[in-house]
């Protein structure tokens, strides 16, 4: 874990410019000029490291119950990120928004997954298209790729974005891996939500008070999408007597 933190820290330090003096008026609110002005940089890096570790655990997890718990843990960490990435005064608005993000990511979505899981009859875990060890290795490959990708894209005006970029891409890739390697429809839904978590991570540096409603709408849209997927999975189980997507074989050219 320490290695991951130091790796992230090293990458951020290598990619970031020397700390610049904050621009007048920018210190307050969500904007800041350099990572050094972040009071909770260590916490932020720890949180990002934890996100990467939960990704790898999800790729290794066989049991869906464990996957739901890992997604809940990841959701809680992500929900706290707006607070950790904030530099100015902690006001009521920030706390309120953090609670909403935390509630949706860390509570509502996992509960939705749990409800869908509970409504399905007990099923033995099916062998994924790709073995768990290979999945974890591919996830680590994704981490290396994202670090290389970030180092090739160049500087951004907001240094926090570059810090978030690698963990975000790693999470998106882990989500895609889950979707393409799992046979169960519910596990594919996990992959979709993990992928969305990665994109949310990328959006954290850009969360601003005036654009917060857009973020919220996007989050609600994802919540509804997950809800619709949950219903579809229950119908799949009823029609095919399994949630194995291997059974989908009637629509071919």
């Amino acid at each position: 874990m320490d290695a991951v933190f130091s790796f992230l820290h090293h990458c951020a330090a290598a990619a970031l410019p020397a700390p610049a003096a904050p621009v007048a008026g920018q210190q307050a609110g969500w904007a800041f000029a350099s990572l050094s002005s972040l009071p909770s940089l260590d916490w932020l890096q720890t949180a990002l490291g934890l996100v990467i570790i939960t990704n790898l655990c999800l790729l290794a997890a066989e049991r869906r119950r464990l996957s739901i718990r890992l997604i809940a843990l990841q959701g809680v960490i992500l929900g706290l990120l707006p607070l950790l990435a904030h530099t100015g005064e902690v006001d009521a608005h920030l706390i309120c928004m953090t609670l909403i993000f935390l509630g949706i990511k860390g509570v509502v979505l996992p509960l939705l997954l749990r409800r869908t899981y509970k409504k399905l009859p007990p099923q033995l875990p099916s062998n994924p298209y790709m073995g768990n060890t290979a999945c974890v290795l591919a996830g680590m490959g994704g981490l290396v790729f994202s670090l290389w990708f970030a180092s090739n894209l160049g500087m951004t005006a907001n240094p926090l974005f570059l810090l978030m970029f690698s963990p975000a891409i790693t999470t998106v890739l882990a989500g895609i891996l889950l979707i393409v390697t799992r046979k169960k429809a519910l596990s594919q839904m996990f992959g979709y939500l993990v992928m969305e978590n990665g994109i949310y991570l990328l959006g954290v540096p850009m969360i601003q008070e005036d654009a917060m409603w857009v973020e919220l709408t996007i989050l609600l849209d994802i919540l509804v999408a997950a809800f619709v997927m949950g219903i579809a999975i229950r119908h799949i189980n009823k029609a095919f007597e399994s949630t194995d997507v291997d059974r989908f074989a009637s629509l071919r050219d």
Partner: protein
Amino acid sequence: MLIALLAIPLLAAFASWFIPADAIRRILLLLVSGAELILALACWFVEPASFGGDLLAVDAMGRLVLTVTCALFFASSVYAVGYLRGEDRGDRKDFQQGLHFSNAPEATFTACLLLFLASAVLVTITRHFGLLWVGIETTTIVSAPLIYFHRHQRSLEATWKYLLICSVGIALALMGNLLMDVSIQPEGHFAVPMTLEALLENAPRAHPIWLKAAFVFLLIGYGTKMGVAPMHTWLPDAHSEAPSLVSALLSGALLNCAFLGIFRSYEVCVAANLGAFASDLLLAFGFLSMLVAALFIVGIGDFKRMLAYSSVEHMGILLIALGTGLEAARGGMLHMVNHSLAKAGLFLLAGNILTRYSTKSSHDVTGLNRVLPLTGPLWLAGIIAITGSPPFALFISEFSILKGLLHRGQQWLALAYLLLLGIIFVGMLTPCLRMCRGKAPPGLVPQKRESLLLVAPSACLLLLVLVLGLIMPDFFSEALNRAAAMVSRP
């Protein structure tokens, strides 16, 4: 006016859940679609006041897509009245697999149709990238229950593929949005509103590598929803398994909404002097889509899947038009309008054929002109139109795009374009001619009269494609020019 365009279908969708009588709900559907069409047409005469800056605002391209969407929805609503009469909730037998199934409740179906209209309208009347994404994602969510109207295994399979593939695609587009915002952020200011106006203003100072990455994600993301190859795999399944009126809306309205997402992204790239990079990508994906469509259309037995692959082809043509330059882009706008009209008309007719013959196989459908005396000739006319034959407007648009390619000095691409169009023309026309001619299958009595509700919408849509091919009104020509000019800055 813009608020009304959004609010009317939204309120009607919620109301339709509480209306117990099917007949009243169908009247509501007709009234709402009629009102939306009138409002969309009014936008051509009265400049609608924007709301929240660029949050809700109509430009030349948005107005074009809005009008097509509302016109198609009105035609589909008229068809729906006739179609839903024959679709009760009782036990039904699937003609393909022989399994029993039931239909989804009509209230849910109508509500989802209206929510689909609201979300598609939102896509067309916003110039905010975040809201555009929300609108496109919402179209995915609310159209999934529409595809699963006939609750059997195949439609469920198609729905799951559609939900998952499109959701992943749209998620990638969201990532593209975020990258675009990052690329535009100037030093010391981290807040750039995601409105088109602000992005275009800041685009010349954009970080080129980040913007290139953003465009790739946006193209792949929205391209997935648009059915661009190789991300098109959901499209033939969803279009063939959905009720025909839903297929008409998916092909005619939904794909245009996704195209609008790519169009807006390309606008920003052009403003950032990255037009050449984006144009190459558009051409590559465009030709790949045409090639995939050509390979699958030849010899395909399922006539609904054939129409679906034809949509993949036409989406490819739209990307080629966008990436080729002003003249081709103008042809592309015309192509977008006419493809939507013709394809929606064809899908509605496919529904009539399917109901009468109980098969999707073009080999098993014969004597169509005798069995369905109105649907048959219209079907043939529609196929002639969609394959880009004169005198229909798709001939003019495809010809403009060819001219654009030649003017750009890309003779090889022009040749490939012509070759692929030729293959698809033969691939589509051969089975359709076979369907129309010959004797009716044994036991199938020719129908003397067909319900006007099931034929008139297609006839009107195809008539529009014919009229636009013969006469191009000045105001419409001007609208095409203005829309094309948005992506063809010097």
